[in-house]
């Protein structure tokens, strides 16, 4: 690989942002222009993501496409970006999801200009987190990725029907559970709450390292005292874990995802939750190896709860979006579990699961959005027989569902089997049990939902349902194809990922 | 008399002044309490100045006395304007703004 003569990562990262700015200034009251700008700028990111995915040098491994511009030299803050095998895959995932998301939200009518602008700004944040090597800039991007969510959900979201009941009913009434404002506020505050921990953790590392630099590479080279590592790891775990939906800090996710508009759910469940797991792996494990080993029991144990608990909760839901949202909780458990195994298989599985689940859940939310748009309902038990009128959606849903339950030839399987392998190899072999139980429970609720919605006699509540159309197909086909492609040829992803996880493991296992 | 005696006397006057501020219902009464508190400050300053044989304390006292006068003038003006608008002198009744 020769040196690429342009700052490819920066272009990938900032193209959507430029798109957002253009949309704000050039496309007032011109919906088509809004969409075209969004499409073009995300397409640039997609093409370049695929490009770097292809030309990434797997032999050399490590961080590549490095760019560095000092921002505040006295404080050691620099704009430093690069990707290794792990972030490479995440960048690709982000590209796929946002590209599909632009298509999936083609039909947003109210205030579409602001919608796309916020969405694109958000995406820049996500890209930024994945490519940043400077922890400070990382944090900035992280915030950028979280904040637009409030307005995106608040304005374009939809309210659910959660009733304030139970012994804490009064509290629900006071907080206004069920409304989209509630969900937006909960999500934003929860994630910012997490970012408070992250910030403190980053500072602690910065101060302790004493190198006067926020560069990941420099911090990686310094070793931190075990006590500090312990606390900082906990801070990172809680901070990023909230975003990754760890139990019991996950409750923002069902409400948030259920209330969010389609593209936002796609992006949030598909990419942002991964961002949490990515943070734990990249910063938690990468910088704090001793604590990562010491606290693996915690990460893995909580992940086990996540897997089973999330799946059972998903099973209990009657609102389609909540089902998908809880399935994300369950699958993020698998991601964290894979990471906690501290084995090559498990870690590869975790990263692959991030990718697989990202695409899959993106697909799910796109589909739910379509179903909702056409039927104006998310109540599973009112629906039925939609397969007849929307076979395309049904097929895509089935593929997504199968990936979710880990059916071979879909990306989900590779991720799960690797996680299982890692789990049994880890120091806590019993983790295999909840992991496997989770896949069964997933099979139960996914197929139950599929059957209820798409199979059976057509529901009397609905008529004139139509299948996906035009741009919507692009999203569905793209996501489905990715799921299957990576399920059949996992080496595509595992190859680069392995080059990133193995050095990480070597660091972790160093006595 | 040792310095401590003067300081204690000042502290007592200060506390009495504070007591007045806390307990008088009448706005003018409250002002009188503040006067006492500032008076205590002056006793303190002069005592210190005398025991250190230092001029700064005396000057300080001069300034505080003058500032106090200004403060009292403004305070009383506020009381008058309140009387005019609210028809009351009772501080307790001045709770339009709260929460």
């Amino acid at each position, binding site marked *: 690989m020769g040196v690429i003569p342009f700052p490819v990562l920066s272009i990938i990262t900032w193209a959507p942002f430029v798109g957002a700015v253009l949309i704000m200034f050039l496309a007032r009251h011109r919906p088509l222009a809004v969409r075209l700008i969004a499409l073009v700028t995300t397409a640039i990111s997609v093409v370049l993501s695929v490009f770097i995915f292809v030309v990434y040098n797997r032999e050399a491994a490590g961080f590549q496409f490095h760019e560095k511009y000092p921002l505040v030299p006295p404080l050691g803050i620099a704009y430093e970006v690069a990707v290794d095998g792990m972030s490479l895959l995440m960048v690709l995932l982000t590209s796929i999801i946002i590209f599909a998301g632009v298509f999936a939200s083609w039909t947003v009518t109210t205030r579409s200009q602001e919608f796309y602008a916020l969405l694109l700004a958000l995406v820049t944040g996500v890209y930024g987190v994945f490519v940043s090597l400077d922890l400070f800039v990382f944090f900035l991007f992280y915030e950028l990725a979280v904040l637009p969510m409030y307005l995106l959900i*608040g304005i374009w979201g939809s309210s659910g029907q959660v009733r304030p009941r139970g012994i804490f009913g009064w509290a629900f009434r006071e907080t206004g559970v069920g409304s989209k404002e509630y969900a937006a506020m909960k999500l934003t505050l929860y994630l910012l709450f997490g970012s408070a921990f992250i910030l*403190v953790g980053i500072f602690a590392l910065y101060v302790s390292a004493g190198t006067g630099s926020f560069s990941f590479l420099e911090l990686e080279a310094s070793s931190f005292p075990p006590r500090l590592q312990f606390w900082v790891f906990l801070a990172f775990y809680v901070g990023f874990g909230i975003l990754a939906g760890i139990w019991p800090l996950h409750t923002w996710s069902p409400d948030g995802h259920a209330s969010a508009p389609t593209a936002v759910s796609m992006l949030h469940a598909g990419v942002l939750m991964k961002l949490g797991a990515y943070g734990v792996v990249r910063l938690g494990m990468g910088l704090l190896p001793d604590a990562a080993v010491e606290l693996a029991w915690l990460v893995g144990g909580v992940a086990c709860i996540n897997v089973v608990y999330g799946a059972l909760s998903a099973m209990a839901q009657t609102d389609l979006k909540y089902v998908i949202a809880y399935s994300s909780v369950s699958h993020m458990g698998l991601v964290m579990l894979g990471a906690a195994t501290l084995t090559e298989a498990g870690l590869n599985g975790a990263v692959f699961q991030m990718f697989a689940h990202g695409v899959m859940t993106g697909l799910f939310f796109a589909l739910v959005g379509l179903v909702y748009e056409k039927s104006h309902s998310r109540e599973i038990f009112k629906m039925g027989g939609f397969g007849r009128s929307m076979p395309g959606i049904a097929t895509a849903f089935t593929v997504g569902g199968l990936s979710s339950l880990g059916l071979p030839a879909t990306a989900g399987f590779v991720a799960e089997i690797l996680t299982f392998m890692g789990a049994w190899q880890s120091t806590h072999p019993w983790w295999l049990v909840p992991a496997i139980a989770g896949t069964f429970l997933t099979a139960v609720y996914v197929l139950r939902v599929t059957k209820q919605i798409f199979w059976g006699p057509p529901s009397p509540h609905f008529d004139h349902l139509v299948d996906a159309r035009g741009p919507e197909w692009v999203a569905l086909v793209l996501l489905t194809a990715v799921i299957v492609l990576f399920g059949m040829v996992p080496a595509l992803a595992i190859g680069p990922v392995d080059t990133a996880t193995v050095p990480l493991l070597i660091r972790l296992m160093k006595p | 008399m040792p310095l401590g005696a003067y300081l204690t006397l000042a502290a007592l006057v200060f506390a009495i002044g504070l007591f007045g501020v806390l307990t008088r219902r009448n706005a003018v009464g409250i002002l009188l309490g503040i006067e006492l508190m500032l008076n205590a400050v002056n006793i303190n300053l002069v005592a*210190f100045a005398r025991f250190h044989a230092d001029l700064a304390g005396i000057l*300080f006292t001069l300034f505080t006395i003058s*500032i106090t006068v200004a403060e009292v003038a403004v305070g009383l003006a506020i009381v008058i304007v309140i009387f005019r608008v*609210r028809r009351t002198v009772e501080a307790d009744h001045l709770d339009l703004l709260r929460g």
Partner: protein
Amino acid sequence: MSALAPFALEVGLGLLLLIVFGAGLVARGEDRRGIAWLATGGVLVLAVVAMFVAPAGPALGGMFVQDGLAIFAKRLFLAATFIGLLAGLSGPDRVFARRAAEYHLLVLASLLGMLVLASARDLILLFLAFELMSIPLYVLAGFLKRDPGAVEASLKFFLVGSVSSAVMAYGLSFVYGATRTTDLAKIAAVSEGNPLLTLGLVMALVGFAFKIAAFPFHMWVPDTYEAASTPFVAWLSVAPKAAGFVALFRVYFEGGGERAAAWAPVAALLATVTMLAGNLMALPQQNTKRLLAYSGIAQIGYMLVGVAAASASGTAMVLFYLVAYVFGNMGAFLVVEALARAEGSEATAAFRGLAQRSPLLALAMLLFLLSLGGIPFVAGFWAKLYVFWAAAERGLYWLVLLGAILTVVALFYYLLIAKRMYIEEPERPGRVPVAPTLAWSVALCALGVVLLGLYPKAVVMAALRVAAPLF
């Protein structure tokens, strides 16, 4: 002439006071807004001049010093005053037109107090400047003297203020008594610990805490802010507080010498309770000005986090925070003013659907709120970050964590306003009319917030530079 060099700004302001006074004597008729323009223009000129003022050595036998910190602070005061006066130019209340001379004389006198306070390195001068700054504020708070709320606010402000300054004076008397001097430089040199010195500084802190409105000395704040005229409140909420902080630095850090670090726990405690109380009490507010008042108290708590660092960088970061706060907080108040003039309501409900009615005004408000909330790419983020940073450097992780978590609580109420603006539908259609001068002042604040957000470096560097000699 060179003897006057350190006093250039004060002398200039004195001249302006005289001019305005004279104009007030000469002016006739109901509308005396010319005086307002005069005063505003004068402050602008002074602000411009302040940009070129160079540090000078101590004057008046060390009583007065025109060092970097003083200049930094004075620029801030002048800028804030300019924005505040500019916004007030178009005030609809008749009293501002008729009594423009009084109003501006009071403001300028208070400003003079601030300028001197920033330079005062002697307890006597400091106290005098402090009072010169405060006393006009009591009058200004009740400037709408027909308004039952305003006069009540004025009384409360006066009462708490004069008790606090009595306590402060009492404390300063002990400081003097313990150190036998009123010169801060000499006080700093006193090395042995004296209980009377501690007592004095603790009691003096009451005065400062009142001025910066730390909990529980803050209680005048919400009432005063709610009732007084908004452009004045916008100014009141930033300039005197900034002055309070500068004086605080002078007395406790510059005058603290070796003992400066001993004040860290006190500041940390004050920071903790202030952040907690401010944020929590802001939560249930329905009146935007009250909400901003409590949020302002919380902001003070964050600044105290920087003070708790008791280090040069901490001090610098508080200075930076003050700059960010000036723009963010004033901006927010001024938007409230704009809306209140159009809607006649200061309730948060008045913000409904603002984004659809006046997108730019809503955007400006959003920027201010985000800045106050500490969100990246606007000034407030760096401000919070830097004070946290400074505290973290001193190992105050718990305080940083608490502050960061309370930031989230704060976002709750900031976002509620954002929700009103962006998510809810407007109650009535049509653009919100904004007077040009008010629009300009809002724009200035927005510009400040954004510029500082994008490029904080210059101000941070300046703050670091001026804070370093204190330690």
